[in-house]
């Protein structure tokens, strides 16, 4: 049973985690925004902008971690722009999100073309290398798989823990959970609804940008057009699947990564009988399936997509 043996290969699990990493960043980012009551459909474009910004910074000579910081900063700025439209001005979150995606994507592509007017082969950078943690090798299968991961994957794991900690163990997290459920509750207690939502958007969007940066700085080591390819939208679906909980987001992303890595390997087994596009479709179909599975009992944050205007009910 070759199809089953795949599950015992460290390389398979390494690939699964690699596929999952940008999604972890994206889902945690999306759930922070949505927990605060804002649907951020700018995610797809913020992925692109983060991928481009981090990669370009390193290409121009910045350190890897400086590149990561720049990517996060760019993401946060797009998040604040989203907030200006949806939180301060109370405009449609759907349309604004699509607008941010179109704007961030075209700005990144345009910027890339300004920097590299006529390259055919995308320039490469010296990217993050796997952290060879000797101790991990003692664990079977998963250990060697983890040993192949770079610092950014570990950062993604850390973000899950941090997000869970902040949401459930700090006054700030309490306020974020409250503002996405009933902003009036936060307002009545003297906290700023706009401040909390803007902060959540900035932080969440920064994480989304890191998801993009992982792709150019740890996976492909270069920037090219169409590289995000719907990953952002997949994250929005996975956020619903994870019922807006960081720990479930981690599980969801890893599950997704495993499915995706598995079907790629099946593809080589299938050996050209099935067109390759069928396999490429899998992530999108999986996302829709994931949505359908949970949609009925999805417990959306009650104030999601509802702008808050003081004194109005």
């Amino acid at each position: 049973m070759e199809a089953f043996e795949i599950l015992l290969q460290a390389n398979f699990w390494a690939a699964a985690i690699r596929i999952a990493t940008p999604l972890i960043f994206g889902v945690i980012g999306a759930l922070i925004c949505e927990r605060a009551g804002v649907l951020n459909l700018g995610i797809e474009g913020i992925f692109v902008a983060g991928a481009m910004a981090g990669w370009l910074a390193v290409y121009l000579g910045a350190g890897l971690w400086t590149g990561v910081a720049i990517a996060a900063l760019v993401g946060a700025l797009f998040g604040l722009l989203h907030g200006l439209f949806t939180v301060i001005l109370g405009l449609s979150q759907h349309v604004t999100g699509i607008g941010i995606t179109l704007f961030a994507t075209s700005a990144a592509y345009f910027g890339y073309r300004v920097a590299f007017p006529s390259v055919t082969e995308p320039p490469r950078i010296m990217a993050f290398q796997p952290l060879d943690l000797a101790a991990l090798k003692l664990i079977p299968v998963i250990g060697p798989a983890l040993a192949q991961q770079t610092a950014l994957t570990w950062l993604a794991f850390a973000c899950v823990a941090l997000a869970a900690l902040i949401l459930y163990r700090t006054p700030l997290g309490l306020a974020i959970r409250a503002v996405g459920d009933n902003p009036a509750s936060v307002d009545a207690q003297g906290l700023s609804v706009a401040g909390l939502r803007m902060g959540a958007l900035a932080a969440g969007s920064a994480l989304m940008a890191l998801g993009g940066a992982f792709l150019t700085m740890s996976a492909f080591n270069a920037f090219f057009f169409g590289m995000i390819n719907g990953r952002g939208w997949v994250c929005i679906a996975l956020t619903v699947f994870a019922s807006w909980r960081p720990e479930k987001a981690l599980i969801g992303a890893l599950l997704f990564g495993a499915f995706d890595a598995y079907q790629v390997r099946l593809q080589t087994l299938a050996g050209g009988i099935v067109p390759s596009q069928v396999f490429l479709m899998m992530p999108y179909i999986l996302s829709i399936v994931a949505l359908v599975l949970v949609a009925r009992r999805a417990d959306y944050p009650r104030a999601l997509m509802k702008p808050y205007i003081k004194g109005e009910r």
Partner: protein
Amino acid sequence: MSGIGEAVLRLEGVGKRFGALVANDAIDLSLHRGEVVALLGENGAGKTTLMNILFGHYVADEGRVMLADAAGAWSELPRGSPQAALAAGIGMVHQHFTLAENLTGLENIILGTQAWYSLRLSRREARKRIAALMRRTGLQADLDLPVDRLGVGERQRLEILKALYRKARILVLDEPTAVLTPQEAEGLFAAVRTLAREGLAVLFISHKLGEVLALTDRLVVLRSGRKVADRPTAGADRALIAQLMVGREVDVARPARAEPGRPVLVLDKVGAGQGRGRLSAIDLTIRAGEIVGIAGVSGNGQATLAELVAGLAQPIEGRMDLLGSGAPANPFEAIARGVGRLSEDRHRDGMVAEMSVAENLIMEQRWSKGVQRFGLIRRDAARDAAKVAIAAFDIRCPGAEAPLRLLSGGNIQKLLLARALAGAPRLILANQPTRGLDVGATVEVHARLRRAALEGAGVLLISEDFDELFALSHRIAVMHGGALTPAVAAQSLDVQTIGLAMAGQPGAVFEAAA
């Protein structure tokens, strides 16, 4: 009642205008320790604006808010800052609760009381302090369940605890009894009296004159943004207060004698819905020409009953007969059968704010010959029909083509009433028909419903307002926990009996009718 202490709050000449509208006009008001003051006025009299200024949500155009600290030194409350109001000890319990329903009671109370950048949430100390508060005031609430699993009474106690936890010295209660049974309201009043004895100053906003007379020490009445009375409660009566609020004498009409005809609605052991709004085996008959009132605290199944009649829900058991046939399969069928419907929440279920007055008026008749031909809307016909309705129902609006969002609540309700009555319905569902309306609009809506009954329609009135129930109903039934008492002639009932039935203890009057 213990003595009333020194002043803690003074509003001095507070004024606020919105465009041409003067919401508050040079209002002076003082509040003392240990005193319960009623703030009265019709909708639009300026109460909400004044409270928003006090709480820092609005900035006053003129005047100032002065507060005395614990030592008795006066200072001005910073403008437009809810934080400052909270810090100064002003606590507000809004009519619509400001609780996050996914959080527990404890989390709601401590929300915003710890520095947001703090790295840990100290629940234990908070729990101790809240427990002490509960013991002292008698206000009990579950602290560990998510708020969406608590009842309204418990949520309200949480709101008050929230204010007390922040060491409130002034407590504003905005329509606190709107959602409570009379018995729950009694419990609330006992707690308020205790708090006042301990030195809290309480500002009590209410429409219910009986409560105001029973609870408060002093009355402040606003009319059209101006303070028109500030006097001790002792010596005042309902008639006087009503006159102060409206500025003229109000006569309370009684229901006209009914000559009930054939049944228009029969429910026989009907069960429907699920969860908290479930109906179990209810019996109800409404005849042509009579108005039957359904009393009860909302959330006890009234919504499901309304949905059955409106065509939005179907019975899962029992027999339903509506105007000679079974339960309507959808709202379209209900309308076609001759049911006129007023929804409970006109903003949620009644109006399309961005569409015009005329478009909203034709919504239920859109397929009728007068409005369309071959699927094309006859705009002129629709506009003319709208103009007739606007005149007949005295709907104040900029015109038939103006978007509905520009109209006031009372005028929107009159429009919806015009729409519901347009097809000369034989059964009328009036679900909270005057909620949030001022006295003038209420009188008009009541007159329309009475006339419809006189002309032979049966009316199903669902209301939480006792005055309304007694003013309109020939018979009254009470709903509690999805069960319905028999409908009893209104003359043989009083508020106390209905209140007990609302709490699940129908007395002998109801049992005799069964």
